[in-house]
């Protein structure tokens, strides 16, 4: 098959870190190439070099056999290379059309021609079967749609090569299925695709060939046909992934009880509608749902970040309705937040400072308002050791850590907090399988010590693997409750999209 793209001997260093160490790959016409590897393996870096967001220290890129210099994204676009970024790159308050046509607008006397642009977007959406409303405001669109907008952007720019960096991290199973099918369609239509993902089942479903990176080096390029999930994960992390044993517990002590929780929004919509749920000691309870269906708000209400709700929240036996964060934490709650940089940490602060959060007034770490710095640093070092967080010392700033290591700092802080109940939101988002296994272990360990965990994640496999019970959230209310024994992958997917279950029959 024709090679549309070749990257040869790419080297990229950040200070002492060699992010890409002499990597060579190629891409063929109409194929889907998957790139896998641990956190920090250098996947994003390689793709950023291809898309002109970073400059390689050395190495060459050939497009259709000709050497090219990709110095910026606009050069990449001119060369018909498009990228769907890991973090969406959208203009929230603008319309879908304005987002898609950006930089290649149809204009009349340099005025923006609203109608023509919208027609063009509608036509494009039709042609590739990617459904969007051209006039909708992007902020109001669900995540799945936002991703379709990202893909349409690359198609609008006539991309022949499309790069996807962890595209499924934020999608529901059904959306993931849609996405993977879309990718296959695009490949069939002659486009060449590269996908970065941590989910090996997706790789097995969609890819033609797989590139495996480890610590900046190219380990191997294999055909999908000739490999398996086990082999890939072994290549990625250099060892086998252990399987988690989950023991069941019996307990009636209720750690969290949410009764008739209702919350309005300024958009004039109920974001939570009469939610009832509970978590017992020794239980991991999952909340499954497409993001944007009220999970975030539910967690905000329980943790005290949102206090203008109606209803009752009980944590660890005490009524904490409309209490502030500090009071609820005191009542016995810890919380791994959804977004590690926005909520979970201060990037400019040291690891010690980040680990102290929430405990700065405890007798363990302060006396008469004065911090016991030695004690704090000692505790930080202990967590760094236990969670094998890869850092130089506890005075390093969070912004200097890789995403996975930053996540570990937060997870360590919250899981090791001396309290019975933990809310864990997307605790493994974007971290590699090894680290993921570790986080899972710690969560289960907490549960085994008769703690309770409310796990909110869009990662279906995580929910299926860890949870004793699962609530499905749709459109602000609890749609269904699964007990461990009757959890069903397909049923779950349908429920998450608002389907109804009628005597074990799933109706769309």
């Amino acid at each position, binding site marked *: 098959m024709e090679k549309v793209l070749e990257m040869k001997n790419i080297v990229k260093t950040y200070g002492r870190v060699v992010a890409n160490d002499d990597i060579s790959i190629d891409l063929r016409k109409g194929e889907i190439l998957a790139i896998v590897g641990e956190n920090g393996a250098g996947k994003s870096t390689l793709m950023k070099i291809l898309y002109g967001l970073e400059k390689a220290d050395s190495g060459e890129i050939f497009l259709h056999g000709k050497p090219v210099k990709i110095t910026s994204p606009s050069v990449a676009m001119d060369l018909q290379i498009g990228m769907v970024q890991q973090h969406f790159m959208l203009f929230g308050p603008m319309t879908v059309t304005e987002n898609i046509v950006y930089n290649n607008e149809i204009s009349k006397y340099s005025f923006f021609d609203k109608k023509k642009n919208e027609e063009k977007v509608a036509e494009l959406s039709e042609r590739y079967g990617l459904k969007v409303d051209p006039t909708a405001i992007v902020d109001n669109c669900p995540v799945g749609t936002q991703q379709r907008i990202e893909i349409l952007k690359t198609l609008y720019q006539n991309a022949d090569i499309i790069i996807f960096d962890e595209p499924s991290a934020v999608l529901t199973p059904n959306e993931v299925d849609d996405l993977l099918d879309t990718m296959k369609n695009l490949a069939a239509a002659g486009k060449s695709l590269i996908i970065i993902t941590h989910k090996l089942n997706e790789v097995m479903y969609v890819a033609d060939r797989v590139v495996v990176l480890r610590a900046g080096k190219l380990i191997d390029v294999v055909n999908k046909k000739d490999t398996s999930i086990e082999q890939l994960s072994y290549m990625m992390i250099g060892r086998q992934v252990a399987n988690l044993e989950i023991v069941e517990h019996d307990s009636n002590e209720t750690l969290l009880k949410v009764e008739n929780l209702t919350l309005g929004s300024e958009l004039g919509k109920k974001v939570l509608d009469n939610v009832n749920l509970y978590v017992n000691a020794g239980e991991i309870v999952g909340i499954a749902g497409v993001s944007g269906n009220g999970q975030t708000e539910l967690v905000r209400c329980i943790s005290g970040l949102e206090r203008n709700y109606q209803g009752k929240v009980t944590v660890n036996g005490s009524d904490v309705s409309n209490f502030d*964060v500090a009071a609820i934490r005191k009542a016995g709650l810890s919380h791994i937040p959804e977004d590690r940089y926005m909520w979970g940490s*201060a990037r400019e602060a040291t690891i010690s400072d980040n680990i102290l959060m929430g405990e*700065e007034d405890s007798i363990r770490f302060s006396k008469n*308002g*004065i*911090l016991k710095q030695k004690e704090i640093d000692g505790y930080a070092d202990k967590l760094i050791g236990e969670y094998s967080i890869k850092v130089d010392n506890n005075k390093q700033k969070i912004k200097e850590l890789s995403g996975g290591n930053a996540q570990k700092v937060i997870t360590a802080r919250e899981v090791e907090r001396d309290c019975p109940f933990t809310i864990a939101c997307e605790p493994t988002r974007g971290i590699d399988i090894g680290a993921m296994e570790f986080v899972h272990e710690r969560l289960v360990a907490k549960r085994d010590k008769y703690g309770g965990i409310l796990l909110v994640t869009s990662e279906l496999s995580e929910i299926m693997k860890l949870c004793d019970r699962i609530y499905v959230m749709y459109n602000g209310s609890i749609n269904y409750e699964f007990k461990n024994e009757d959890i069903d992958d397909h049923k779950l997917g349908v429920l998450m999209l608002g389907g109804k279950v009628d005597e074990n029959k799933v109706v769309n």
Partner: protein
Amino acid sequence: MKTKLSIKNFFHRFDDISYSLIAVVIGLIVGAIIMALTGFDPIEGIVGLIKGGFLSPYAIASTFTRATPIIFAGLSAALAWGSGYSSMGAQGQMIMGAITAAIVAPLIKGPAILVVIVTLLASMLAGALYSLLSAYISAKFDAYLLIITLMFNYVADYFASYLTNYVFLDPYALDKLAIQTQLIENGTIPRIFSRYTTHYGFIIALLCVAIVAFIINKTSFGYKARMSGLNPNFAEYGGIQSRKTMYKVLLLSGALAGLGGALEVLGSKFRYVDKMITSPGYSWSGITASLMSNYSAVGVLISSIFLAGITVGGSSIELLMSIPSEITLIIQGIITMLVTAKFVIKLPKFKKKEGDKDDI
């Protein structure tokens, strides 16, 4: 591992200091170029500037005197800005502190030390409450603190001007100068050495530097304030009551500014003179000092002394060489611009790297 780290930290620090030093050098060079272009002897000018600001007991004493109010404004700003509250309010709070001192001190009868203490407390209270008012409006009504405090500065200035002109003017002023309050006879702050203007307010300033440094770095309140500054979402998520922290921080920041204003009255002018806080731009210099030093208390001390020193040196070269003292404000502007840019050392490195990459 520990030793390696401390060496690394040392170089980290060294980097920061050398950026500032290079900024200072560039500022002085540009100043020298301007002097040369406008017909003054640049070398004599720069040497005179440094000499006049730092190199004699008299120069140092004058510099310390001028630095005193700047240090307070700087600490006030460092506390607020370092906690994420961009308050420009030091000026208004200093005015409130100063006018309060000028009103309260003559009213109190008793030993001087008592008068001083009561007056300083009253001024701190005035500064703190004025700061709290802007904090309250900003928090309650979700208004931009920078703007609110800026508006409050104008209001304080006019208010103090009204008081000095119509309410507390000096009834015995021979000069019919209705822009000042009564001279304070009892309750002034003495000089450290009678020959030099530096008064004990400077010692109080040093004390406050230590206290603020301790509060920021070693207390749980300081921790809350710092975290609120670095990432308010994180602080909120962690249970730090943002509003309470904001009020506390801005109260403290206002009290410091108020204290600075009061010391200027009790230690230097012995009365409130209309515009005495506004026109020398103490609060601008203070905010500049705090930004230059990335909100560190000790950094504020050093930057304030530096800024005061080149101003004092400027008046000296004006007297000795007739170089307009505005040259020092120009130099100061260039230095502060460069200090946050921090490109001085990095620039050549960048260039090198880009050259390397061309072979893609």
